[in-house]
């Protein structure tokens, strides 16, 4: 189903969504970045830099109360949200990241807290001329209920799911030919750098000394993990409160010593070099073996969050440059 929306159509669509969902829309914040925020107090930011806060954080937040256990042993879970979530403004990498995260959290046994948030949520992708200075963002063509493709101050609207199609039904039809052209433009992949790096690691062509070098440049901020939309590791935090024990989950980072440190003090990932290698190897090799695809969606967030320039792209580039010829 292809529709075409004017600006007022778009607003009508969002208004309709907001009736039944807790709608989050892209906004320009005071520091000049774009993030998702509640629809009610927002001016829409329909093109620009990638969203600073990874949108997956709506389904898997940095800190999340799981349950409260009182003195009598009663377990209480936080009440479910009044309305399901609707996120508008995710680009192709954001949607790919969420699809990847879904695999992890919804593979049996499913994570019920994630599942409850995710199952009835509505996703509205935003692609086309929605990048910085209205530059072109490749189409997602999947992974969302509705995809809005910005073109010439209008939006082609693709309904992917039933919920999406029904929300779009009342709008005018779009031009299929335009869609064909846009799809063609989206096929130009930027580069196969990550695939090359993945192959190098898979073939064990990157020496340990390389990881020591990279690790020496790491200041252990954990930002690469926390900014990554496909990182799914969390740890548990228990706190004694007057109401009982509150158990929460908190984003964790495989770059930290305590991430795998055992009670004895022994750590199977006991050096920074090993942990740095793991960060890259996990996304480029282990995930491929487990899920059949790279664990990196190439959103660039870890490269932007890294204070010393050793995010995924930077490391992959260095790896391919230095060891690529040998393969």
């Amino acid at each position, binding site marked *: 189903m292809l529709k075409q929306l004017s600006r007022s159509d778009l607003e009508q669509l969002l208004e309709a969504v907001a009736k039944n969902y807790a709608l*989050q829309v892209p906004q320009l*914040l*005071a*520091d*000049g*970045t774009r*993030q998702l*925020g*509640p629809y009610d107090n927002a001016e829409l930011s329909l093109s620009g*830099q990638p969203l*600073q*806060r990874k949108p997956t*954080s*709506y389904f898997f*937040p*940095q*800190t*999340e*109360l799981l349950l409260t256990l009182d003195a009598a042993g009663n377990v209480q879970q936080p009440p479910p949200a009044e309305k399901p979530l609707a996120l508008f403004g995710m680009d192709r990498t954001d949607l790919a990241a969420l699809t990847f995260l879904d695999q992890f959290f919804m593979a049996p046994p499913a994570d019920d807290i994630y599942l409850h948030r995710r199952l009835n949520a509505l996703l509205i992708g935003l692609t086309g001329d929605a990048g910085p200075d209205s530059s072109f963002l490749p189409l997602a063509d999947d992974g969302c209920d509705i995809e809005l493709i910005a073109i010439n101050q209008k939006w082609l609207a693709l309904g992917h799911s039933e919920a999406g199609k029904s929300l779009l039904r009342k709008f005018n039809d779009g031009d299929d030919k335009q869609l064909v052209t846009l799809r063609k433009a989206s096929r130009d992949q930027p580069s196969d750098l990550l695939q090359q790096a993945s192959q190098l690691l898979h073939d064990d062509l990157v020496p340990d000394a390389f990881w020591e070098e990279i690790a*020496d*440049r790491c*200041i*252990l*901020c*954990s*930002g690469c993990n*926390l900014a990554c939309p496909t990182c799914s590791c969390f*740890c548990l*935090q228990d*706190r*004694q*409160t*007057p109401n009982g024990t*509150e158990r929460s989950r*908190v*984003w*964790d*980072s495989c770059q*930290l*010593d*305590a991430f795998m440190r055992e009670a004895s*003090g022994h750590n199977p990932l006991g050096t920074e070099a090993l942990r740095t290698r793991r960060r890259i190897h996990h996304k480029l090799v282990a995930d491929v073996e487990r899920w059949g695809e790279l664990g990196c969606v190439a959103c660039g967030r870890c490269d*932007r*969050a*890294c*204070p*010393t*320039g050793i995010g995924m792209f930077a490391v992959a580039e260095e790896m391919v440059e230095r060891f690529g010829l040998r393969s």
Partner: protein
Amino acid sequence: MTATLTTCPYCGTGCNFYLKADKTGRVTGVEPAGKHPTSRGQLCIKGWNAHAFVDHPERLTTPQIRQRGQLNAAGWETALDLVHEKLQGIAEKYGPDSLMFLSSAKVSNEENYLLMKLARAGFGTNNIDHCARLCHSSTVTGLVETLGSGAMTNSLSCFDETELIFVIGSNTTEQHPLIGSRILQAVQRGAKLIVADSRRIRLAKQADLHLRQQNGSDVALLNGMMRQILQDGLEDREFIASRTEGFSALEQSLDPFTPEHVSKITGLMPNQIVDAARLFGKTDKAMIVYAMGITQHSHGVDNVRAVSNLALLTGNLGRPGTGVNPLRGQNNVQGACDMGALPDVYSGYQKVADPVVREKFSKAWGCNLPESPGLMSTHAIEAAVEGKIRGMLILGENPMLSDANQAQVKQALENLDFLAVIDIFPTETAQLADVILPAACYAERDGTFTSTERRVQHGRKAVDPPGEAQADWQIVCQLLQRCGLQSDYADPAEIMTEIASLTPSYGGIAYDRLSDNGLQWPCPTSDHPGTPILHQDQCTRGKGLFSPVDYRPPKELPDADYPLLLNTGRSYFHWHTGSMTRRSHLLDREERSAFVEINPEDAKKYGFVERQQIRISSRRGSISCAAQLTGKVPVGQIFIPFHFAEGAANALTNNALDPESGIPEFKVCAVRIEPC
């Protein structure tokens, strides 16, 4: 879900981030500010976890009053009346100078200003100080003398264009991580790096030269470098002639510091000193970066003078990519100094001894003001032991863990007739209080903070404080009101208006001007754009002053009874006395308890193994903590971070003070170690 842009509560780098909060008013996470000039979408591990302690169940939520030895909940009015009545009573009976006020590098500029107003105008004493006494008092004293201003001369953006960075006594990647990362990036693009630090810190791995001088021998090293620069003719003669004074005295003073002589004092090879001098001297744009390794000595001010001399000698001042760059450790330690939470100055470093200045403040505040400078916090502790200080109000500080010689601090605080503590957690110091007042933390109030590069920035309220806790400025206002002083400020912005009207360097600071990444002082007028680089055409004092210094050894060096040197400081994952970071899950998990870094060679000598609990004793105290075997510390030295109450490094440290700045010698004392 809300997102509130604010300034990080930890170090002085001045990163900005968004605090995320949910509908129930709980902070749930942090997102770095993407376009902020300091954070640039990045944070360190503490920044990424800065939300974690905010809703910790141990937050203080109600005022408490000690009755028959027990702390009991009380109402605000009763508690505030009692604080005022007790402090007033002591002032009347023993004189205002029997009171001491400790302000905080963790509270806003407005709050520091109000507390110094309360001490001076409300209770008539200049006895006000804060923990800058323990970190950069040597800088303030030393650089005011040589340059006229005690702050970082340049901006963080200068790291992007410098040719050489000389880091001496700063573990930058751990203590100012987003500055440390700029240094690492500078190295990546080809800048040279000299690291002078006895510990093999992360930066040392990337350094062109790593000088592991003996702790406390910095004057000898710096003098030796300067002598060599002169020998090689690498000094900046034009700069010396046009911008400085006192050169010949410096030149003469350097004579004895031959590479061989310096080698004996520092433990370095003579050629290392020569190499460092040549590398530094041949560079056009060099930044000197320093922190506690320079300041926390009984000769801390001399160390600062030597650093300043080196910059003046080579003309590394007043230009982009150069400068004397002391890194301030707390998010508002610069501001607390700027606001006059110091015993000898009002806001903007205006001297209390100056009758014209006093008259100005006296008129503005509508009361008489005390003339003689007050006590430094370290001297106040000594005075409390002697019974000369009898009442104390401590705002957001924890001297029980942060000050040198814990036994003496405990004795001092227990000796007081009355102690009131304003804090967010029941710290070790709060446990000794007669009254505890619960405060809002950084996430729960508005105010401004001044970063190490003199950038005045907003801190913004994201959520409500827990229980009955109140913002520090509101608490202090209620005490001002009880002292009969004007206290009806509507909000912190109004307090800033008063600060600007009385403080030349903040004259142009106003809330509506700070939204775009703040302003760097001096900013004297409402149309002034701020000052990224100090001392450009001339130094604040006019000519830059060479201030020759001689080498003085630390007060207590290892001997037969106490054969090892104890070095203390912070670790990467924890913050000061741990009240916030030990209540932040990921940070606490990373380092759960007290530890001591010991060289594997020493461990072998004593028969210690990794993680073994060992006893460490000095002439002042004894603690136990777990051994961490690492080549990071040299043979003969151990290092203990001071975050842990159960293994308090400051039970051991020496409260030998610098005669001018009053800073204790945290970086050197003698200890012995044995199995537990």
